[in-house]
């Protein structure tokens, strides 16, 4: 009996400590200027619910908008934010039009109506060979899958496992903030997916492996052979489907919306995309957007080759240029 009382005290103390830490995590976990590399559904939900998005312009898009391989402070959208423009950056690495539609649904599900909605359209993601084609980012999928129509779900490949342990994991993540946002916390603490990854990054930096990797991964045109599929776009294309759905929903809900045609490095990709078929694709998506009253910001050829890291990711200077264009083209 004495042992049971002892055990009960230990468990109670443990539970109280975990609850206190959880409350502290919910209240004190900082809001980052942009989503982490592998953000969680819990973190996204917290960002959508807690930041007064009704008074902000929400940006949704892929790594080109997110600021791939530049620090968070140098990303175009962070610069806008620092200049006092009220924005929320919900773009992320691996975004696509399907993900932008899904994020608009997430906002809708949580009853959030942003001041304006800005998203980018990147033609490379209309290529069925793209590694994000037909999929949603796991955290986004987790929040919105059941709110998609059966027809929309049939266009996508579900990546969330439906096993018992996966369901339990999601249920625990939903109520326990520390556990649910563990991937975000690890990235904030270590700057990597986990502590081991941070140690590996330091080791690779010291040993010169990082430098050798960067040297062997220079952006040359041959690496982008097959990145863009220039066959005429039709409604059989999943991204076209979601682009139509996104444009229609924005128009129906009277949300002021802007679509950015993604800056593309025509100097690097000249042999592949400086052809009439590429321009036909740009015209095709522009028509879909304008038909629903969405303003199109055509930045496709607005940047010099020196402002790119590769085919569509901008350097720090390129991000500064993008911020300047957005300040010019978006209402305050």
């Amino acid at each position: 009996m004495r042992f049971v009382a002892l055990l009960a005290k230990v468990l109670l103390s443990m539970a109280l400590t975990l609850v206190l830490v959880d409350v502290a995590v919910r209240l004190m976990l900082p809001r980052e200027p942009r989503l982490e590399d592998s953000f969680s559904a819990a973190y996204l939900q917290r960002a959508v619910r807690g930041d007064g998005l009704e008074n902000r312009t929400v940006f949704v898009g892929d790594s080109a908008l997110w600021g791939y391989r530049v620090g968070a402070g140098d990303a175009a959208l962070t610069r806008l934010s620092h200049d006092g423009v009220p924005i929320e950056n919900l773009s992320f690495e691996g975004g696509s039009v399907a993900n932008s539609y899904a994020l608009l649904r997430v906002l809708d599900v949580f009853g959030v109506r942003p001041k304006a909605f800005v998203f980018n359209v990147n033609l490379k993601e209309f290529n069925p060979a793209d590694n994000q084609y037909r999929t949603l980012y796991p955290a986004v999928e987790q929040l919105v899958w059941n709110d998609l129509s059966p027809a929309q779900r049939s266009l996508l490949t579900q990546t969330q496992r439906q096993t018992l342990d996966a369901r339990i994991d999601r249920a625990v993540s939903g109520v326990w903030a520390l556990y649910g946002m563990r991937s975000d916390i690890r990235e904030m603490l270590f700057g990597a997916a986990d502590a081991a990854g941070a140690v590996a990054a330091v080791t690779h930096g010291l040993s010169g492996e990082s430098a050798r990797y960067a040297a062997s991964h220079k952006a040359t045109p041959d690496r982008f052979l097959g990145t863009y599929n220039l066959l005429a776009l039709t409604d059989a294309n999943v991204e076209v489907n979601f682009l139509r759905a996104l444009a229609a929903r924005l128009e129906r809900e009277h949300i002021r919306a802007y679509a950015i045609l993604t800056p593309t490095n025509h100097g690097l990709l000249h042999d592949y995309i400086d052809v009439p078929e590429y321009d036909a694709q740009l015209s095709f998506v522009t028509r879909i957007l304008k038909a629903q009253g969405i303003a199109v910001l055509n930045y496709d050829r607005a940047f010099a080759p020196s402002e790119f890291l590769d085919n569509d990711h901008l350097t720090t200077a390129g991000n500064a240029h993008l911020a300047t264009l957005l300040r010019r083209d978006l209402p305050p």
Partner: protein
Amino acid sequence: MIDDGNVEVPGARDVAEVLRTDPIARVLGTRLTSPWVLGIVLAAIVIAMIVLGPSTDSRFIYTDF
């Protein structure tokens, strides 16, 4: 020398003396080892496992061309 209970072993210390002077025994004998503190320590271990554990989440990994 065999200790038969009657013969004092040279160098051996009284149990009470050990509990009073040994550093580990002194820690174990204090309030630090109360069930409440033990619960906090266990919670800290759980938190450390979550924060320091390996990332096994199936996330999107950007393929750098």
